[in-house]
């Protein structure tokens, strides 16, 4: 059976054969030889977790990558954000300014940290907070600003730095989608008071799970080391400090080290594929692939397909369902319409490039998008079959 789409009934959502097999879109398998090397090390030392030597090795390598003084790895990126925010909780106040364009878990993260989110309007064209808005919202109760570096462009880093210096308010950057990105030729990791990155299997480093904070602040480094380990300090198993278990275990650290070794070649590969996507834009009427800012060295592990034709969230959802049924892996955050916030880009789907992963597949995807684009109005109207297939 052919996978090429000639008529609407060839779409998998209408009963046709999926363009990609599940195997094709699976996560990159771990190199078992490299994993064995680390597992043997773990067994020799008898240390599975608790700030072990592989964790320390990973932290030291990440410090070199980012050119920062300290990296502190944690069991995941969301808990890294919680701990970093909670480090700034003080008796003076509990307000954190966050952009109105946020990831799904942002409100929850701020609340777990025991803080109160103050939502800032974003500049409509770039989806980032501007200094005038920060100044408007800053009060004596403001303890931090949490800003986002998007997958395709960065927040206003220079403005945030100036604001932070002038107001004396720490700025924390959510850089989970921005590994390897640069600003003025400097790799991210040393902008703002602290930056948080992800080591999840879905991100470019392709660890098993995990996150980390990069910072040049020695005080914050020791605070976070203690916070991630029940408030313990050094080898002492009790402490007067508050904390929780946010430790990365040695196996997850090993997986991240394996991923880190090949991350640059992976980024180069994704960037080359992204060029193919962007070049194909001239063939489409209703949608386009969003080009990342060329100055920031985006890892391009996700590509955003933007709807140019108005169709709202229904069109966005329909497009997402059509692509998913072809076994194309989509980023979750952009599938849901959020009642209290909005996403940038507003009507887009977020395709995980690592699940496409070679030129042949990229060209197949482009051809599919071309077919969808050509028949887009009919696809939007064809509610019955799409709904049926999804159910």
């Amino acid at each position: 059976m052919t996978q090429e789409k000639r008529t609407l009934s060839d779409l998998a959502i209408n009963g046709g054969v999926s363009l990609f097999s599940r195997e094709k879109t699976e996560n990159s398998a771990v190199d078992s030889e490299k994993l064995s090397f680390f597992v043997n090390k773990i067994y020799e030392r008898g240390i599975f977790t608790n700030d072990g030597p592989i964790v320390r090795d990973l932290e030291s390598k990440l410090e070199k990558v980012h050119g920062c003084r300290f990296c502190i790895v944690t069991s995941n990126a969301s808990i890294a954000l919680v701990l970093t925010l909670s480090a700034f909780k003080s008796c003076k106040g509990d307000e954190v300014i966050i952009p109105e364009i946020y990831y799904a878990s942002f409100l929850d993260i701020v609340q777990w940290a025991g803080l109160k989110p103050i939502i800032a309007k974003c500049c409509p064209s770039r989806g980032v907070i501007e200094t005038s808005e920060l100044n408007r919202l800053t009060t004596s109760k403001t303890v931090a600003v949490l800003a986002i570096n998007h997958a395709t462009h960065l927040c206003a880093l220079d403005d945030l730095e100036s604001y932070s210096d002038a107001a004396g308010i720490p700025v924390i950057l959510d850089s989970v989608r921005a590994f390897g990105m640069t600003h003025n030729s400097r790799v991210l990791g040393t902008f703002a008071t602290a930056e948080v990155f992800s080591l999840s299997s879905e991100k470019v480093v392709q660890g098993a799970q995990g996150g980390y904070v990069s910072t040049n602040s020695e005080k914050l480094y020791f605070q976070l080391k203690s916070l991630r380990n029940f408030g313990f300090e050094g080898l002492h198993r009790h402490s007067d400090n508050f904390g929780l278990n946010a430790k990365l275990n040695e196996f997850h650290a090993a997986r991240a080290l394996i991923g880190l070794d090949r991350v640059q070649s992976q980024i180069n590969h994704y960037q080359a594929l992204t060029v193919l996507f962007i070049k194909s834009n001239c063939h489409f009427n209703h949608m386009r692939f969003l080009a990342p800012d060329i100055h920031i060295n985006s890892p391009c592990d996700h590509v955003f397909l933007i709807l140019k034709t108005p169709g709202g969230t229904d069109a966005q959802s329909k497009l997402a369902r059509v692509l998913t049924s072809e076994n194309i892996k989509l980023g979750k955050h952009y599938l849901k319409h959020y009642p209290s916030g909005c996403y940038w880009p507003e009507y887009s789907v977020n395709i995980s490039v690592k699940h496409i992963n070679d030129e042949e597949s990229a060209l197949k995807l482009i051809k599919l998008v071309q077919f969808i684009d050509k028949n887009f109005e009919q696809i939007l109207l064809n509610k019955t079959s799409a709904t049926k297939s999804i159910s």
Partner: protein
Amino acid sequence: MKQYHVGQLNFPDPKEVVAEIGLAERNNNDEPYGYTHEFEQELSTRLRVKNVIAVGNGTYALMIALKALNLKGEIIVPSFTFVATIQAIIWSGLKPVFCDVEHESHMISTNTVRAKITQNTVAVMGVHLWGSHCYNDDLASLCEKHNLTLLFDAAHAFGSETHEGSIAQYGQMACYSFHATKILNAAEGGCIATNNDAFAERVKNLVYDNDDFLNVRMSPMQSAIGRLSLREYSNNAAHNKASYFRYINKLCECRSLSVVECSTTLKESNYQYLVIEIKLNSGFNKLDLMKYMRKKGILIRDYFSPPIHKLNFAEKYISAEDDLSNTDNLSQCLVQFPIGQKIRLDDIDWICDQVLSFEKSLLTY
């Protein structure tokens, strides 16, 4: 010098670990969290409980369980516990109210809990210690009478069973830990076990379906290590049991200390902790004993010292009238000795000989 650690350190075969991790990651691609769900099923069977939800560590298990209960107010909890129990309560926005423990069992009882119930109390969190348990019908009735949720931190008690069945069935839920030092080891890890389907659904929703929530999921890698460890559970528990009785037999000659014995209501225990209680006025000093043993490479540890209510961050949850005298006394006289797969029976003989020598040196002096 050979070192003898406390903590289980039950490591599955490394080659099997690598192969199983590969399998877990492939399976998870076919079905998101599919491999972890299989592990949850196996845990559910082992714990004889309807629902198990695996998470990244034992602290997350407590935090998510409390979040899913959606409670606001005070929760009665012993101060004689690991710091994670109390921290999870505070992270979840609840106020811990410390109650004392019984000197014999080291755990809460109906009496110690009753004294702390106020109109602000919304729950009671018991902590099952040393592979034993603190549930009884009177405690459940007391909670029911006052409309309080009863739940348990069961980090020490994986696999423990009473004559009525698994301890996982007690209360609204039990939260377990699969830290590397536990008998079931997933490097880090934990789970929430419950027979309440509606509550399980709320937990599953927070863990698996809710993008708005913290990421607390157990990774395929952790699930792989945990599954291998679960397969070895019975052998490891049997080894611990033999070690436990060896300690009892060897240390019965010692007049200054005794092995803390499992509750008689238990049918099965994991025997993952070997706790020694130093007798009051025996002349034995805990710190001297620890120093002496450490010099021999026997890395014994005191538990739980200082108790939580003596820590700075917990000060605001305690008042001058609170009587936690049993907790204070126990924190002065309990030490944990090495047990687990790395500790052979002849190691135990040697360790016990060192304890007896120490006692003899004190008596001679």
